[in-house]
């Protein structure tokens, strides 16, 4: 189910003096099963882009094709999109509301019109997919830890069986182990289940380690679209956009500056260690 953004533009308050172009003529194609990292500073248009891709707002101009269909065309049933694109907002645990974990996860499929048996099956599968044990199913979601709550919220989206999963900063506020759990889970959904994942993140280190391809937004425009190694070669540009290089890449540049001839394109600890050993040994 490839996604194509074609000249996508969104203007807030277009009829007022204070109009701002949040997304400005963005075009890209994402193929099935890709793990995309979407980065950009606060206010660069990432969240608006996510809302456009999941059909929550209509573009001012341009459109989105999912599986070859124009989702903003007049004859397209926009409701059907929820079964295709699942969006996990920031702090999704704030949206948990039911008495039990299981009921909460049932909410989505139930509203898609599935019968009780199908709904429960979807919920069960989703909860298993995020790695929650049976004993938490009938607990109140509010009694769980931060990382668990977030997994319940993600299960609530997965229960609708989307092919494309969009996550807006899913690791914000989690401890390092919780961060890794969520990122490993998402990676697994992508690699094992073949889901297409679009991950918004402010952590360059996480993006460097996990994704296949990086999209960099600045002032509503798509400025860089490349594999992580290539994307992080644009040091000055990224810094100009209020972003940064992964910590180890910054370290490699400093190491080169003291006269040790290392290549500076390592983006993970493993790669950096290999490169330093190659030069020094």
């Amino acid at each position, binding site marked *: 189910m490839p996604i194509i953004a074609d000249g996508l533009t969104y203007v807030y308050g277009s009829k007022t003096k204070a109009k701002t172009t949040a997304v400005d003529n963005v075009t890209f194609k994402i193929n099935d099963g890709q793990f995309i990292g979407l980065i950009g500073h606060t206010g660069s248009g990432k969240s608006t882009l996510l809302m456009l891709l999941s059909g929550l707002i209509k573009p001012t101009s341009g459109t989105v094709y999912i599986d070859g269909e124009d989702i903003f065309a007049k004859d397209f049933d926009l409701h059907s999109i929820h079964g295709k694109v699942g969006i996990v907002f920031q702090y999704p645990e704030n949206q948990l509301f039911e008495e039990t974990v299981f009921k909460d996860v049932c909410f989505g499929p139930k509203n898609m019109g599935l019968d009780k048996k199908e709904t429960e099956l979807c919920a069960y599968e989703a909860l298993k997919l995020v790695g929650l044990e049976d004993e938490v199913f009938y607990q109140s979601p509010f009694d769980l830890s931060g990382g668990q709550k977030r997994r319940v919220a993600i299960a609530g989206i997965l229960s609708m069986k989307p092919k494309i999963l969009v996550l807006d900063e899913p690791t914000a506020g989690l401890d*390092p*182990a919780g961060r890794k759990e969520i990122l490993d889970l998402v990676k697994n959904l992508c690699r094992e289940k073949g889901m297409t994942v679009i991950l918004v993140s*402010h952590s360059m280190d996480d993006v460097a380690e996990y994704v296949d391809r990086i999209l960099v937004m600045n002032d509503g425009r798509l400025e860089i679209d490349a594999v992580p190694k290539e994307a992080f070669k644009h040091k000055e540009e990224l810094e100009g956009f*209020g*972003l940064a290089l*992964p910590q180890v890449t910054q*370290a490699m540049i400093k*190491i080169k500056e003291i006269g040790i001839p290392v290549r500076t394109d390592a983006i993970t600890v493993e790669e*950096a260690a290999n490169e330093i*050993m190659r030069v020094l040994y």
Partner: protein
Amino acid sequence: MKIIKAEKVTFEYIRRDEEGNVEGINRAVDNVSLDVKEGDFISILGANGSGKSTFAKHLNSILLPTEGTVWVDGMDTKDEEKINKIRQTAGMVFQNPDNQIIGQVVDEDVAFGPENMGIPTEEIKERVEEALKTVGMYEFIKRSPNSLSGGQKQRVSIAGVLAMHPKCIVLDEPTAMLDPTGRKEVIRALRALNEVEGITIILITHYMEETVYSDKIFVMHKGSIAMEGTPREVFSRVDELKEYKLEVPQITLLAHTLRQRGLRIPECVLTVKELTDAIKNC
């Protein structure tokens, strides 16, 4: 001089069912004793649910200990008469800047604290300007907070606390929602406040690299203090940190990996500067 002193602090949340019967007791903070010296930069690390935030709320009387005592600059936080003085001494900044900013204009927002302290108008103006200059936000004094970036908003929140002239600022994950530039701005502002103004900083964070310049790190685990020491002492215990669901900064990890592969690199490198120095000597 101890600005914060906690002695055997325990805090219990009582869970109740719908009829109000006690269902169980959660001990969020369990027998914590710690001292913070005036002028120190302290970091508190710990997994989600380890009790960091609950403990932090004891430092300016938002919560009172179930057992034990907290003194802020010599004042017992249970002393109701001193509550205003305590909150002026230890100010607090939270995670989400949007939940803390109430003013329509930046200077109004920063003035909120001193106004409520009954400071004369002329002095409020001075304090607001001074506070905004300290965090590098003076040029935005007449702007609407809505037009600021996350890091800028968070620095306005810090200025709001600063305008009350606190001796100590407690920050609960102030960078969790910020982009890389915003994070850098906030941490830089905190280090300047600590080094130049001598204000005691207590920083709670999930980002290990933000803590490498602290004087001391406390690691909380299940409500208790599991580790304490300088960053070098704490981050040299890689396996123990993992048990507490934490990690070491990426640079420390890189140095650790190189050391394991046989390079002569000292244990527990914390900064890029230390790493390049070590590699130079290889």
